[in-house]
Structure formats: structure tokens, C-alpha cells
């Protein structure tokens, strides 16, 4: 009797346990949301849109790995200058991205992080676009436009590195660019499109975006001005001069005045910014480690402004003060790059490298126009466009050039205005110019150790970066660039 009683108790206990435990096999994550619930309401799409932008700056700890990430992996923030004559490798740094600077890259060391991060952004925009069929109401058109704009921007950066630029050479449009991806299939193995196809699709996405996007989408997001600015750059790269001018004319943001210019770089001014990403407290991304670590008097420079570039800035050019400072370390002085040094603190500028991302600025629209007008033979309007920028940078701006002197002045101004701002490599490349580094060292007075390699001749295959071997291993449809 007693035994039966015990058995019943035990049996009940076991059976009861069984039922409740079985249910616990259905565990739902605490720190993430089931994807089926993530793209339904308009707010979901706003969240997803910010998530897509996040791919530009995504961070692990304080080291950013996104497209505009930390230099270690080579990124939009650094590579377009590291590859060129704007910087010199500094001997007191850590030789970060030296392979890029020395044009010593191969399938094992290339811009693989930029590559995969760009496609991460693209994947996120495509998820929005695919799911937007569920979205109704008046926010839809803007979300679709914005996603397309971001998708185009990511592809443009990719094809700039890994493919030719249409105006670079006659064969450019027919040569291989990058895969233009518009679907989210995890098993896809897309082949490379031609450069011409890539640019056509970029233009298509951007023109559709320009038509529907809001004037402003708030902080950290692109609005109409940003899309038009990007579109004018794309047309410039394509050599479609009139389209470039038309798109640039749509940009309404005024160019930052000289007085406000230095403040742009310590985040006390937002003048002239068309698209920027605030480096808020919850981000705290130390993007400044791209160029320097430490304080101005105990500095570690990865790269310094090249002696040649430093001397190109006229004494009354406000940009020299904004971009370059004298960094000291162990009794040596350097032309340190100050563009990402830090925000303004209570007393002085901080040096923790936490500063807003400036992606597009209004002066580019003017310089795009100047270049396109010059190429159409309209020297007068071209000079006027150029002076729109120069009058806001110098106290006594140069002016009055004609012919190739005007062309060179436009190019020089573009270099000075966008030094360390993700343009130089693409500009030299599309102009069909070699990269020539002068034989100056890394110290402030031009002495010290110069960069190892000083010339990348026109036509070198090294202008098109190699695809990572792991990229090709995963997707055999990706054909490696010639010469690697």
C-alpha cells in the first residue's frame, strides 16, 4: 500500500515535470527579435533603415569595422588617401595598412573588410526593399527611395576600388566591375557586372531615389541634397558633364563659410554638411585612430600628411589649420592629420578620435560643377563655381586661371578641399593620372623616412584592387582582376 502510494507520488512528479519541461524546448531569444516580426509597421522600416546605415559604421568594441571603419582593415575613411600622395607612412606608427600604402596588396591582403561590409549594407537595403511590399501608406515611397540611394552608394564605393572608373580609360565601361546585388538570397553566387552596367544601375537607383526621397530624413540619414550630390559625383565619374551639373544644381546646402570651417572638424559647426553621421555617446567610435593615437604632444601617427601636400596649402588657407597640426613624440615633430582628432571639449579639442562622420559636403557640388563645366568648355562658369569654394577658404583667394591652368586649379582645389576625405584615389584614377609621391620623409620638415614606393604609373593594374581569395573561394563566379 505504502509502495503504491510512493509510486503514485513519484509518477505524478515525473509526468508533471515532463509536460512543463517539454515546453521549455521552445526557447525564444531575449536579445533579438524573430525576423518575421521585424518588417511590418512603418516604424519597423524606419528602424531597419537606420540599421542599414549602421553598416557604414558598425563597430565591435571601439574599433569600427564598417565601410567607414577603422584603418586596420582598410576602409573608406583611410584607403582613398593611404593609397595616394596625400600621406606618408610614419615611422612612429604601427605600420597599419602598409600593404595598401606600398601597393603591395594581393588576394590575401586587400580591402576585404570594405568589400564584405559594403555588401552587408546592400543586403540590409535589399531586405527593406523586398519587405516593403508589406508596407503601406505615405512613408513607403521615401523608405524605398532611401534604401535605393544607400544601395547605390555602397556599390559606387565598391566599384571605385575593384573596378575601373568610366572616364579612367576607354575600355573601362566594358571591363568588369562588381556584382550589383538586388536580392537577399543567402545562396546566391552572383558574377561581376561590367563597369558600365554597374554605373547604369547606380544611376537608376539614384534617379529613382532623388524623385521620391524626403528633403530631410533626420540625423545620420540621406535626404534629397545627399542623393543629388552623390548623383552629380556619379555623372562626373561617368563623364556625363551636363547631368553632373544638373544634379549638382539640385544641391541647396550652402558651402561652409571660412569662419565656421575649423569648427566642422571638432563638431562645433555643421555648416556645409550634406550627409554626416553624429558620433553619439552610444556609438563612441574612436574613428580618429585611423590617423593618430595619443595626445598632440605624445602622438602615435599611422600616417602623416605628406610634406608635399602640406606645402600646397597657402598660408591663408583655413584648411591647413583645420586638417593638419604639429604632432610631437619623443622629441620629433610631424605633420599630423587632424581631421578625425576629436570633438571640442570644454576647454580644447579632445584627442580621443571620437568625432562625427562627415560623408558628403556641399563644396563638392560646386567643385563637381566646376569640373563638369570646364569639360564642357564653359571656362567662365567653371571658374565661378571654383571660386564659390575658394572665396570661403582663403582670405585672398587665387582666381582668374584659364585653360589647363584652370583645369589644374580645379583639380588642386579638389585635392586641398577633400584631403583625407575619401576622394583622392578615385580622382587620380578617373583623371587617368599616376600616383606620384615626392621623396620626402615623415617628419615635419620633410626629413625622416620617405614612403618605400613613390610611383604608381598610369595603366597599372594596381589601380584596381584585388578581390580577396576568400571571396573567390566562396563565390567562384567572381573573376579576379588582371595582374593578381
Amino acid at each position, binding site marked *: 500500500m505504502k509502495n503504491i502510494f510512493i509510486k503514485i507520488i513519484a509518477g505524478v512528479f515525473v509526468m508533471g515535470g515532463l509536460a512543463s*519541461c517539454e515546453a521549455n524546448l521552445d526557447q525564444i531569444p531575449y*536579445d*533579438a527579435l*524573430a525576423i518575421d516580426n521585424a518588417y511590418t509597421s512603418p516604424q519597423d522600416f524606419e*528602424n531597419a533603415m537606420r540599421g542599414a546605415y549602421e553598416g557604414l559604421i558598425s563597430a565591435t568594441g571601439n574599433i569600427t569595422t564598417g565601410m567607414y571603419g577603422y584603418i586596420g582593415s582598410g576602409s573608406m575613411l583611410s584607403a582613398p588617401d593611404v593609397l595616394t600622395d596625400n600621406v606618408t607612412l610614419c615611422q612612429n606608427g604601427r605600420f597599419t595598412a602598409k600593404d595598401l600604402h606600398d601597393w603591395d596588396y594581393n588576394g590575401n591582403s586587400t580591402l576585404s573588410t570594405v568589400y564584405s561590409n559594403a*555588401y552587408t549594407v546592400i543586403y540590409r537595403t535589399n531586405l527593406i526593399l523586398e519587405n516593403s511590399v508589406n508596407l503601406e501608406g505615405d512613408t513607403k515611397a521615401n523608405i524605398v527611395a532611401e534604401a535605393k540611394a544607400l544601395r547605390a552608394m555602397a556599390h559606387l564605393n565598391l566599384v571605385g576600388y575593384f573596378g575601373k572608373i568610366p572616364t579612367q580609360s576607354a575600355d573601362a565601361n566594358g571591363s568588369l566591375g562588381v556584382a550589383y546585388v538586388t536580392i537577399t538570397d543567402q545562396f546566391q553566387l552572383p558574377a561581376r557586372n561590367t563597369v558600365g552596367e554597374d554605373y547604369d544601375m547606380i544611376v537608376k537607383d539614384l534617379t529613382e531615389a532623388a524623385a521620391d526621397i524626403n528633403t530631410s530624413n533626420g540625423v545620420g540619414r540621406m535626404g534629397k541634397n545627399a542623393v543629388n550630390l552623390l548623383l552629380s559625383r556619379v555623372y562626373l565619374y561617368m563623364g556625363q558633364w551636363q547631368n553632373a551639373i544638373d544634379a549638382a544644381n539640385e544641391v541647396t546646402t550652402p558651402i561652409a563659410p571660412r569662419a565656421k570651417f575649423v569648427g566642422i572638424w571638432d563638431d562645433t559647426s555643421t555648416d556645409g554638411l550634406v550627409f554626416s553621421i553624429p558620433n553619439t555617446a552610444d556609438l*563612441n567610435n574612436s574613428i580618429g585612430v585611423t590617423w593618430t593615437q*595619443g595626445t598632440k604632444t605624445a602622438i602615435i601617427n599611422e600616417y602623416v600628411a605628406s610634406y608635399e601636400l602640406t606645402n600646397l596649402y597657402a598660408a591663408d588657407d583655413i584648411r591647413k589649420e583645420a586638417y593638419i597640426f604639429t604632432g610631437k613624440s619623443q622629441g620629433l615633430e610631424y605633420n599630423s592629420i587632424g581631421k578625425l582628432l576629436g570633438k571640442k571639449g570644454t576647454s580644447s579639442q579632445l584627442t580621443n578620435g571620437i568625432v562625427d562622420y562627415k560623408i558628403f559636403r556641399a563644396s563638392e557640388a560646386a567643385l563637381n560643377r566646376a569640373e563638369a563645366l570646364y569639360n564642357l568648355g564653359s571656362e567662365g562658369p567653371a571658374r565661378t563655381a571654383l571660386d564659390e569654394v575658394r572665396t570661403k577658404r582663403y582670405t585672398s583667394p587665387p582666381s582668374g586661371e584659364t585653360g589647363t591652368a584652370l583645369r589644374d586649379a580645379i583639380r588642386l582645389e579638389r585635392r586641398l578641399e577633400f584631403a583625407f576625405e575619401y576622394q583622392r584615389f578615385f580622382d587620380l584614377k578617373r583623371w587617368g593620372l599616376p600616383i606620384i609621391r615626392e621623396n620626402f620623409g615623415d617628419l615635419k620638415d620633410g626629413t625622416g623616412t620617405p614612403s618605400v614606393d613613390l610611383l604608381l604609373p598610369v595603366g597599372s593594374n594596381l589601380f584596381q584592387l584585388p578581390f580577396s581569395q576568400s571571396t573567390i573561394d566562396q563565390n567562384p563566379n567572381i573573376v579576379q582582376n588582371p595582374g593578381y
Partner: protein
Amino acid sequence: MRTKFSGILTLILALVVQLTFAQQKTITGTVTDDTGLPLPGANVLIKGTSSGTQSDFDGNFSISANVGQTLTFSYVGFSAKEVKVGAQNKINISLLPDAAALEEVVITGYSTRNQTVQTSAVVSISASEISELAPTTSIDNLLQGKAAGVQVTAANGKPGQGAFVRIRGTGSLSAGASSPLYIVDGATIREQELGQIANEDIENITILKDAATTARYGSRGANGVVVITTKNGNRNKEATVRFSSRYGVSSLIKPNFNVMNVEQKLQYEAELFALGLGSAAAPGVSTNPGSPERLKLIDESPDWQKLGYKEGVISSNTASISGGAEKIDYFFSVGNDKNTGIINNLNGFERTNSRLNINFDAKKWLSVGVNVGYSHATSDEPRDRNNSQNLFRFLYDVNPYERYYVYDADGNQVFNEYGNPLYNNTNTGFAGVGSILTEPATDSWNTFLASGDAQVKFTKNFSYSLRYSLNSVNRRRDSYSLPGGVLINLIGNPDFPGNKLDFESFRTDITISNNLNYTLSLNDHHLNVLGLYEYNINSYRDILARKIGFPTPILTTQVNAAQLNDANTSANKLALLSYGLFADYDYKEKYLASASARYDASSNFGKDNQYGLFYSFSAGWNIAKESFFNADFVDDLKIRGSYGTVGNRSGIDNYASQGTVSFSNPYPGGSSSTPDNIANPDLKWETTKTTDIGLEFNLFNNRVKGVADYFIRKTEDLLFPIPRADESGISTVAGNLGEIENKGLEISLQADVFRTADFTWTLGGNIIFLDTKILKLPEGKDVSPSDNTFNILYREGAKINEHYLVRYAGVDPANGRPQYYKADGTIVYADGINQDTDRVLQGKSTIANKEGGFFTNIRYKGFGLRTDFVFKAGNWINNFVESNLNSDGASVTDNQAVSAFNYWQQPGDTGVLPDPRTTLNNENNINSDRFLEKGDYIRMRNVTLSYTLPRQYMDKLPFTSFRIYVQGQNLLTFTDFYGDPEVGLSSAESISFAQTVAPGEATLYSYPNTKSIQLGLDVSF
């Protein structure tokens, strides 16, 4: 009150009187063992009462008892005997060894089985062995060399740090998935948390190696199971109080190479500058030998080693009380362990623990037990980065002429605004030694291990038990960058000085186990069947806060800080539900068979794939027990075999099968959702099929013992982050693909070479010969686990964890240029090398193919000398430290090894490093096998000289045992490796313990191993 007291007194008196009225007499006698030797300390009890006595040193006893009462004689390891008191006044009794008790008892998953009838490859390590080895702080390190087939790689030398344990090779290619399952009194514990268990509390560690027993752990046993049981008291035995105490010192194991001193470094700078390397400002260039400036440099240079290192102090003190009565046994302990480690100004590791284990017979049919252990540990956590924030890297890199503090132009020391010294950042850019004081980081752990069980006997054959086991680990991390400190001065925000992180995690693992047990002993047939229903849930939560803006370095709590920088919580859960049926059978201990089936369901797999069935069969034959077998010197000769399937579910995220978006990646303007995990509803178990054939023998009255096992482990459906095309925007999706194989031979032998009453000499050892092979990979393609390794490549047909590097072909004697092999074997200079396609696999894996240990133990009277060696061979280590110290001028700004002087200088030079000028052309930065070295070593892990006070003195002393010893650890190492060959973690902040898939791949300045000398004392009474 007084009345009450006298009442009780009267009652007691009455009882005593009543006793004397009975027919009482005094019985004397001797208790001996089967060979006639006296058994001191044997229990003599009057059955049914609590009165009794113990035999003295000569086995003599004397007890008063009534005629008709029964005396029970018992002694640990012997069968108890009962004698009824009759006419006799003298009882001489000889106890027979209890076969079952003397046999090694093996805890084989939910049940225990005697070694004799065991059909599985298992190794058991007893409490006495553990205490003889007096391990440092963590028990996993102790396992090295103790059990054949168990490969142990110390993660590093940090006090309290554990080891990578691999049983029979590497069973998975995923991070963290190749560790065995650890079970402490029924609860699972993670490998990282083993350091929280006090060694002195451990009764037994049993390592289950083949499927016959691991399959009983179903989905978690594929990489072997380590079953740890804690101590219990002995029934019917008066309390034994035991004190165990150790004290000793530890120090850095001096590297087998030298780095440059001040003069050498200055000379090196000058030499290299003449070749065009380095800076004109370098002191070796800007000062001349013999000049006052140089003499000043030499004069002012500190002893950096002395600033960074100290002699560590190790101490361990435990006390335990154990014993039992007829219906209860208990074990209670408290302990404290300290190991300061060798970093100056740090306290290292300290653990305080306590445990109470009680078993109690509540009713005839019901017994209950409870084991509760608690420990609190604190551990200093210096940076383990691959830069000079890591003290060990800093001490290699710092130029010996650098000064420790900052001085102004007048030579006065400079202090920060809080009055603390400013430390010189030196050539390394970061004041590594000073930062030990200004960047304190400490972990503290509270670990609670508890299990309670109730056993119900239904009938003679049927019983049921319920066991509830809980393991709760709370970890707290305090990491502070002091305002005005080294890091803050470099990257801090001057408006908000200081930066403090508080992080706490709470991990709870609960197992509820229901067992229904059936045993049958019929004639010579023995059968045991166990039905299991078990539920396990693991919950994790964490919380963190980071603030900046501390008013003073004295205050460390967040409430004092001005600005919140980061705050977070997260959580996850993992559930497992299991059904099992296990059966063991033997006939006359001669024919043996076992079988098991376990059906597991885990919450981290795809909806339709949560359940998996794992089973095993095994059989054995003890030939020595056959009547036809008449070789008398053979005590046991057993052949056994097993086959089974075992699962693995670790190495993937708890929600890996579900498609999710995450909100954890912030973006300005509002919430941001990013695709997080890509769903794979087909995700299922990783399955290992193990075949094992074993031979066990005991010869010459157990003087010679041996075990040999041959095994084949095949793992399929590997849990793998399967890479997707970069263009898809998806990096990896958790899936099942691929197949690997580990096979090998394990041998372990032990013999008493001499065995007399006064002198015994025991020799023993074990070894595994291991082969690993990758059989199948996703679509046959190579896989590079690049997130968790440096240069490892997985390729079909290759070994697991092979280095994938360009081959170095030495220096061209004609011109000093480094040469390399192209993939096809032709020798070229660096410019002819394609760093992708010229890499090759050479069969050089990070996994040792021979590993084990051996020992000698000499006992003469009370003296003992035990020496344990561990060895490892056949593994290859990429020696980044050597590479950095011989950088061919690339790191001329940092200190170098003296051997860096030995560079090519003129045509014909051989046996030299490349001409430093080749560095200017990037000829030396090819990622090659130039510094890939054999990791072979033999290390004297332990040597102990001990003296145990002989029994004859015990009578005069208040002790029952007394042992003193002096012990040395890691005093001798034999290796050709450059540096310390025991390499586990390279740098924990490059690849963490949990992420590591190839322990010992490379050296990178992790906490070095230490040697120690300790003096110890064990007493009980």
C-alpha cells in the same frame, strides 16, 4: 531549571544503572587483515547502539558488552564482520578485503561500476593522487600526463587560469566545441569555471573516453566526459579532522634566450642606422659610445624586469572534518588558496571555499543526501593584448635605456594632478609597467554548487532516485582606467577623466534527474538497468555599466562618475530534455556486456531536429576468470570493445536555428534593427561515432597493471558556421557539414618494480599516439577559420589544425636576402612569392601526435620521492615572439633578442638572419613558416619529497597521520623550442579562451608559465 536538570541527571543515572544490571563483560581482542597484520583504527561497535571503540595501533581493542549483543567490526576497504557476544572474553577477528571496496569504483554516468566489470575506456583519478600532486589552483592542469588520451594544454600561466582539455583528439572544428563535458556531483560546469572548485574537496575524477559510457551523456558527451565527485564521510567512523597547508614561492621560468641590454641595444641601433634603418634620433645613433650622454643613459636605465616581475607567493590552507554514524555521513571543509602570480603590484588569484556534504538514511526505504559547496574567488586580470598594454609584451619591447617615470627638463620627476607619478610611455608608446597600477582590472567569482538527492527503495530490486543539481556562477568584472593614468592620458577625455567598467554575469545551470533503477543478482548473473528522465536548463544574464568622469582615482563606484558611457543587459537560455535506458550485465564477472540508449532534445536546434538518439554497445571478457586459464601470475586479463554514437551541441549560439534581427547595433536617430542570425531550421546534432578496442591486465598480484586502447572517432554533421558568398551580405549560417576523424592508440602502464614492507618503487606512464584527419568539408572546399586562428586551414585529407604558410628557404649566402619556396618548390626571393597561392599545408598541426606523462615514486619507510613528467611531441607552434625579437630591423625601435646581431654581413655568411636592408624592400614580411617550430618538450611537472610519520609514533602524538613535504613544479624543461614550449593562448584579447579552436597555434605574450617551490603539511587526527 535546576529541577529539570536534576531530573535529566536522574534519568541518565537510571539508564547507567540499568545497563550495569545487564550481564555485562569486557571483551578484548585483536583485529587483523587477511595476512595477519594488525588493523589499527578499526571500528568495533555494539550493533543497535551508538557505543563502540576503535582498535589501537596494534589492532587491539577492548569493549564492554552484554551477552547476546552483536559486535560489528568494520574497516575501510574490508568487509564488515559481526560476532555475537556469548561466553567468550576474547575475540580475535580477521577481516577480509572487500573486493568491491578495494576495486577502483568507476563513476560511469548515472551509476558506478567496478573496474573489473567495466567495459568502457575510463580513467579514474583518486583523491590521494590529487593531493599528492598538490596542484596549483585549477584541476584541469592536473589532468595533464595523468590519463592516457587526455591532452592538456595550459591556457597560460595566469594564477587560477585553466587549461584546454582534449580527450582523444579534437572532436569539432567550432570554437569552444571540443572541450569535454564536466559534471560536478551531477551538475554541469564550464571548462573556464573549473578553477572555482577546491581540489581538496574532490574525491574522484573519472574520465570517460569511449562511447560505452559517454553515450550515456547523449548529446553532450562527444568530446568525452569528466565526472567529478566531491568527498563524503565514512559511516560508523568517528570524525577525522584534516589540516592541509602549503606555502611556497613562484617565479618566471627564465627564457632560454637573451634580450639585449642597454649597451647591446644602443650598438644595434647604431649598426642598423648605418644600414639605413631606424631614426637618427635613436639614442644609439645620437650618442657616441663612451660619451657622457651615453653614460647617463646607461646610468639612468632602470631594471625593467625587476619593475615588472616579482617572486610570487603561493599558499593553500584547508581544513576538513568528516565522519559518520550508522545512518549518516558527513564531510565539511573550508579552504583558502592564494597565488599572487609574478606580476609586480598585483595580488593574483585568491579563492575561499567551503563545502558540506551529508548523506542520511531517513527511513529504511528512503535516503537523502545533500552536497553544497560555495567558493569566492578574486583574480587580477592584467591586459592580455598583443601590444604593450600587455606587461609581458611591454617587457620584451621596451628599450632597456628607457626611463620608468617622466622627468622634466631639470631632471625632476613629474606628477599628475592627483599627485601620482607620470609614467614614461617609452618607445612602445604605452607605459606597460606603470599601467599595472593605473589600469586595475579584477574579476571576482561567486560559485555555488549544490545537489540534493533522494533515493527510494521500492523493493530489493527496484529503486528510484531524484536528484536536483544546481551550479550557479556569478562573475563580476571591475575594470578601471584611473583618472590621470597611463591610458587616460593617451586616449581619455580630459573633461571626463577616468573610465570604469562594471560587468556582472549570472549563469545558472539546473539539472533535474529522475532515475529508476533495477538490479538483479541471480546465481552468477548480475544485471542493472537504469531508466533516466532528465531536464537541464542553463540560464545566463549579464549587466554592464560604463561611466567616465571620475573626480579622483580613489573612488571607483559608478555613482561618483559624471557621464554614462554605456549600459547594457542581455540574457539567454538553453534547455535539454533527455530520456535514457542503460543496462549493464555480467556473468561471474567473466562475460560482460553493456548497452545504452539516450534520446535528447535541445532547444538550440531547428524545430524539427531537436531530438537525437544516441546509443552504445559494449562487451568484455575477463579471460583470467576462465577455469581453463591457469597462468597464476595473471590476476585479470580483460578484452573489451565498444561502439556507439554521441552528440555535441556546443559551439553554436543558443538561438542559432532561428532567423532574427538585432537592436544591439546603435545608430543615431532612434532604434536600429539589423539582420542578426539567418534561420536554419535544419540545424541538428553533431554526431561522433566511436569504436574502441581495449585490453586491460593486472599481473603478479596487481603489481603490474596495464591498459591499452585503440580507438576510431568519426565526427559527422559538424556544427559549422558555413560561409556564404561575400556578395550575399551574409557572413555565415550555422549548419551541419563535414566530417573529421581522430584515431589513436593509448597505452598506460604501471609497475611496482620493488615492493617490500619498507621499500617500494613504482614506475608508471602513459602515452597517446594520435592521428587526426579532415574527411569532408562543405562542398569539398577549404575552410579558413580566420576569426579564431592566425594561419590555420582546413582541407580535406589534411590533419586538423594544420598551419598554412609560405615556406621559408633561408638566407641566400650570396646577398643576404631571405628566400622562400613557391608552391611548386622553386626557391625565389620575396618578390616572386604570391602570399596566397604559395602557401602550403605541410602536415604540421598544432595538435601533438604523441602526448602523455610518466612518473617514478619511491617510498622508503616514511620517506617518499615522487617525480612526474609530462611530455608532448609532434605539434608545431608559430613563434611570433621569436619573430618579433628577431625582426631584421623592422622593429629596430623596439628591443630585440641578442641573436638579432647575427645578421648577414658579407657574401658567404651562413646560419645568419637576413640582411636588415632587405626589410626596406618588405622582403621579410612574407607570412612564412620561418618561425614555425616544433613544440616538443618534456617537463618535470612535479617533484615531491615527503616524509610521513610512521604509525608507531602516532600513539604518542595526537595525530592519526602526519605528512610533510617539499614540492617543486616545473623545475626542469627539456626542449629545443625558443621560449616556453607550453603554449595555449597566444593572446587572450586576440583569440579568447572560448573562441580558441587551435590551442597552441602561436606565441603572443600571454601570461608565462611559472615554476614554484612549496613546503606542505598534511595532518589528521
